[in-house]
């Protein structure tokens, strides 16, 4: 890009350019606009300057320069976050990690890999194909999101029911702390030495420093996999089946629910053979050794029958398995034919409350005269109500927000939590006091201040203190290949 006159006279810019180079320090309108948004419905402020470091030292230099010139800094991966975590507020230095995208080392015998933060989640799994190992966290955005973003948001995915969310798969992480110092938190092997600072860092949403290298645990591919499709005449019966499966002592690899509106929308796209007249379907995936899988199939068929399933289909071959999953993964693409805009919420409730809370969500949405599709991780009670609307309609955003707020309130009142996957960011910080007392929040602030005593790392996010920033508007496009 061309240097603008006066550009190098700005001391912050000079510092950044001398640490990186002129091409990788951008202040043009296009870059500033592009990097001012993520995949959420949140608008914040504008980026001050966008940097593209390629090494840990360069990341540290960006942080030090921001600090020296009294600016905040914000880390950014692919920008698929749904809570506004990477949205800028006060003209910060935006540190974009996508150029740090190398897989540094794969140790098959010790089942671990070191990667840079900009590696796209699915690229790691592709790279591992043939080794018999995979990276277990599989967020629906895995074709686009980065592993650095997964670490920062402690992301989940359908198969995290059995295998655990990102935190269970991060062994160690190299971090540029908010004062620019570089530390490695965690160990390749064994329990934490001293405080589990690695565990504390994961899920920090960019407010505790910037991850520059990550050591992930790799998981063995299962020898046997079975995918089942169960269909029900009521959401309640499907929800009871979920509880019954868990209560019977089974933890499926994945246990997903789709309601009728989702099924109707995706079936024409994928021809998976979903029953479009069903009120809800469950996708159950079982994996492990063959006898255990066969036994669980038997048990689930019986539980489904007792709880009124109309049918249970066990995918007979790989193609059928893929079609069943493709339907689940196409939900997002299919919504575009219904309404142009969406707002995807994310709360967790006790699994035994699923039927009751999902019913409440239908009522809330109806009261606000909106459309909702429910497609979610039922096995761990992680709701993902997807509100559909047309942002051109006058006053619609107010109704969307009112419905979103009520869904959060109902979830917390049912004994649940604000977020199971997407984090707090800007989106939910005003709800933090619904779940936490002032003393709870103060304890969280203590953790944060130990990492960032001066408060320059993505400061407006997560905790409901400090400056307010950000408002909600309608959302534009989806990342390619993303699904909910």
């Amino acid at each position, binding site marked *: 890009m061309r240097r603008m006159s006066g550009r190098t006279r700005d001391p912050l810019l000079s510092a950044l350019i001398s640490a990186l180079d002129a091409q990788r320090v951008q202040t043009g309108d296009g870059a500033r606009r592009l990097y001012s948004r993520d995949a959420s419905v949140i608008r914040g402020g504008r980026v001050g300057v966008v940097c593209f470091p390629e090494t840990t030292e360069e990341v540290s230099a960006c942080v030090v320069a921001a600090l020296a010139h009294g600016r905040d800094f914000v880390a950014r991966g692919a920008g698929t976050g749904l809570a506004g975590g990477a949205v800028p507020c006060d003209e910060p230095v935006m540190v974009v990690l996508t150029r740090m995208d190398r897989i540094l080392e794969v140790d098959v015998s010790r089942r671990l890999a070191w990667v840079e933060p900009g590696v796209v989640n699915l690229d790691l799994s592709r790279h591992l194909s043939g080794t018999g190992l995979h990276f277990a966290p599989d967020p629906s955005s895995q074709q686009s999101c980065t592993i650095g973003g997964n670490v920062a948001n402690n992301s989940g995915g359908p198969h995290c029911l059995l295998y655990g969310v990102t935190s269970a798969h991060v062994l160690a992480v190299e971090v540029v702390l908010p004062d620019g110092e570089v530390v*490695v938190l965690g160990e390749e092997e*064994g329990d*934490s030495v*001293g405080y*589990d600072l690695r565990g504390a860092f994961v899920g920090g949403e960019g407010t505790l420093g910037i991850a520059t290298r990550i050591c992930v645990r790799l998981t063995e591919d299962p020898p046997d996999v079975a995918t089942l499709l169960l269909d029900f005449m009521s959401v309640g019966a499907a929800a009871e089946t979920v509880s019954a499966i868990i209560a019977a002592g089974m933890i499926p690899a994945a246990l997903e629910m789709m309601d009728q509106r989702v099924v109707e929308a995706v079936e024409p796209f994928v021809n998976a053979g979903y029953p479009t007249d069903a009120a809800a379907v469950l996708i159950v995936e079982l994996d492990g050794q063959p*006898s255990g899988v066969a036994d669980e199939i038997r048990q689930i068929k019986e539980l489904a029958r007792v709880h009124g399933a109309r049918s249970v289909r066990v995918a007979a071959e790989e193609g059928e398995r893929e079609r069943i999953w493709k339907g689940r993964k196409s939900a997002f693409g299919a919504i575009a034919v219904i309404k142009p805009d969406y707002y995807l919420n994310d709360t967790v409730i*006790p699994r035994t409350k699923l039927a009751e809370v999902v019913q409440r969500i239908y009522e809330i949405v109806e009261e606000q005269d909106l459309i909702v599709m429910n497609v979610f991780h039922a096995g761990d009670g992680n709701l993902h109500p997807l509100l559909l609307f047309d942002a051109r309609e006058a006053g619609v955003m107010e109704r969307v927000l009112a419905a979103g707020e009520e869904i959060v309130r109902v979830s917390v009142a049912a004994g649940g939590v604000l*977020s199971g996957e997407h984090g707090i960011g800007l989106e939910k910080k005003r709800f933090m006091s619904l779940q936490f007392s002032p*003393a709870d929040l103060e304890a969280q602030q203590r953790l944060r201040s130990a990492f960032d005593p001066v408060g320059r790392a993505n400061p407006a996010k997560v905790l409901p203190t400090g400056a307010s920033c950000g408002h909600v508007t309608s959302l534009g496009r989806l990342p390619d290949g993303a699904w909910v």
Partner: protein
Amino acid sequence: MSAGDACMVAFQSDVGDSGAVCVRGGGTRWEVGGGPDGAREVSAPVGIVALDPAEMTVMVGAGTALSDLAGELVIHGLEVGMKGPSGATVGGVLMVGRSAMRRRRVGTIADVLLQADCVGADGVAFTAGGPTVKNVTGYDLCRLLVGSLGTLALVGRVILRTRPVPARSLWLVGEAEPERVLDATYRPSCVLWDGVRTSVLLEGHGEDVDETAGRLALLGLTATEPPVLPPGRGRWTGRLPSGGVLEVGSGVVHQADDGGPPTVPDGVRRLAGRMRASFDPSGRLNPGRDPYRVAA
């Protein structure tokens, strides 16, 4: 009800807001990380508050003996991914933060704790984490607490993730390389190596266990009693000390005495120091104890 809200209020007032203080659990590792320097000792509430098999969670007083909790859970076909010697408490095992030998199956101890009701150094009660099995709301204080030896907060009551007890468990032993045993198994619960023999714990559906045992018989492995490990711990450095047993894949060596504390880079040390000072500015929680002075 035991360990219910009234007990939590009593625990908070026992802790108070001044003077050096610590929680004594079962005292099974009382000297861990250095002594508590004459701090006043208090006890955490005892008893199971709520056990919900359909949620796979249990709420329990931190002072409850781990064996009592395990005894109740097994009636429901459940277990927690924690292990401690006879007399150890739930809170003590969490605060010491050493994963069970079966970590390959049950997960590390860091994954067990979902919510902790605590009293901070200022005497104020607060809750870390949340009650559901999936939760990314705010910072992960629970993971920070596990292994903190009671130097950041004192824990009164916790919610733990439970897991189904495997239908069948079988230990096998034989003179085979650990790598060959790993290649012949799918996610074994534990693999141990004493320098000559490899022991492996198979758990799961009975027929799968038998089928795998059949494959391992070809490598010369035969059924055995659960191993009794030496009481100390060290970190794997590439060589086994005499009498030591490596827990393959965890980096832990079970040995006669605890190994020395690992070296910690200055930057991590400083961050840890800021963390402790942030939670306990006056240094009243477990003074003298240092989580960085613990072996593997």
